[in-house]
């Protein structure tokens, strides 16, 4: 091998496979969707999460995260992005995933609580 360079760049696209919308859980409870990659999420309380990757770091390509990850939980980018594009930041990730915790009881917009959700109002059932 004379010369080589390694760089993973993510871009944006419209997949052209439009249909029924994804479910709420499909996004709000998915580590893959928010950009963490394949793996599982554990709620640690007080708005904090733990992400356990299901994908081993790609040793062959000498990177320390799975190929499916673009950011970590703090929102730190792990890959390059096409100019003008970024992954979610830490705050966005936490906000999205926080809604995921509500979805077990308030499944979707058919629930009046979801429709008129007061962001500041604490949940009487769920203990932060």
């Amino acid at each position, binding site marked *: 091998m*004379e*010369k080589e*360079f*390694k*760089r*993973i*760049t*993510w*871009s*944006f*696209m*419209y*997949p*052209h*496979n*439009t*249909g*029924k*919308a*994804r479910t709420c859980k*499909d*996004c709000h409870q*998915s580590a*893959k*969707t*928010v*950009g963490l990659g394949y793996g599982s999420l554990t709620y640690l309380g007080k708005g904090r999460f733990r992400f356990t990757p299901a994908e081993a770091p*790609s040793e*062959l*390509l000498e990177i320390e995260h799975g*190929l*499916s990850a*673009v950011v970590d939980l703090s929102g730190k980018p792990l*890959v*390059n*992005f*096409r*100019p*003008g*594009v*970024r*992954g*979610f930041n830490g705050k*966005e990730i936490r906000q999205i995933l926080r809604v995921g915790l509500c979805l077990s009881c308030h499944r*979707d*917009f058919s629930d009046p609580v979801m*429709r008129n*959700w007061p962001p500041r109002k604490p949940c009487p059932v769920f203990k932060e």
Partner: protein
Amino acid sequence: MLAMFAALIQELRFKRADKVYTLASGRVDMCLACHKEAPGKAHARGVVGCADCHLGDPLTVEKKRAHRGMVKNPGDLRVADQTCGRPECHPGYAERVKKSLMATNRGIITTLRYYWGEIEDFHAEASVETLMKTDETSPALDYFRKLCGTCHLWLPKEKLPGFLKKKGGGCVACHLIPGKNKDKKVHSILTRKIPLENCVRCHNRSGRIGLSYQGLYEDEQYGAPIEEGEFAAEELEDGRFVARIPPDVHFKAGMVCVDCHTQNETMGDGKAYAHFEESLEITCEACHEGTGRTRKGTLLTNLKVKDGKIYWQAKLSGKELEVKRPDPVACRHPVHRRLTCESCHDQRVPQCFGCHVRRDPREKQLDKLSFKETPGLWEEFRSYMRVEVPTLGVREDKVVILVPG
């Protein structure tokens, strides 16, 4: 005596026409004396002359003289301003198309060079036309020349071997469909109703949009299932195996690429853009909210609003399709105001993880722009391919789908 004899011989050998052939406009077109082909309604035989498109000399039936200066493919961008784009027919189109991204490939070239660290400017000038005329090269350009260089409008039709033969051709890359009688040698038909296949002939790699739209997925290429010792998976013309996934709802409704993608996007609007997203006009909202105008204000004439309902007249089938309005709660809820439609409505996207390429300098490979074998063979690899829930991210403060690449 000898001269008279020669004149007699010449006369006997000359195949005279039975009459002077004229077009509907009264212009002479002697090509019709020998040629019986008909290139479809829009350019009907006897209305548009053969030489109007194919050049040559329409005033003689002497084969050699008539065929001098002829072009087999009038759509070729090298001649298009004298043929398709001539002042009497489609003036200005050739110039527009030449500036469009499908002709320049500026987006592909610039992105590639930028990603590979060869240039700093993401909006740099670049065009296939220049690369074809010069020997300009670099690692990214060499890669482009050998692997990407088959999908652009400057490629002469039937120049490259195998399945690549059908690509390119300028105007006819899109506007030509096979003639009706498949057994005989018939003239292909020119059309504005561009079928899906014409677009997907090129738009089937990278984001694989042409495949996903039809419900095809280029999988891991095992060719499974194996039946009677043979790969039984569906196969594309280029040999890639595909599996079935649910197609796009618009595909199911009988819509094709040109239903959404307007002329200004596909043929260019006269401006030279650096990237696809700049030339893109269509939005989901243009139809689904019934505004009937693109991002740049182009009117969508096939959209009709009747009694509060929105209809789209499909361009190929002519059928009127009812257009669903966005869900008043889920789509319009303020918490989702940053979401693009596709971030929810596209459940899956092909994702090619760990894409990498290798250049072997000992081997040679065909440069698709100079049509010469040059040193350096490029091979493509990937770690794994998935059709899976998309990862989301942000662009211009909108939530969009992110993919590797």
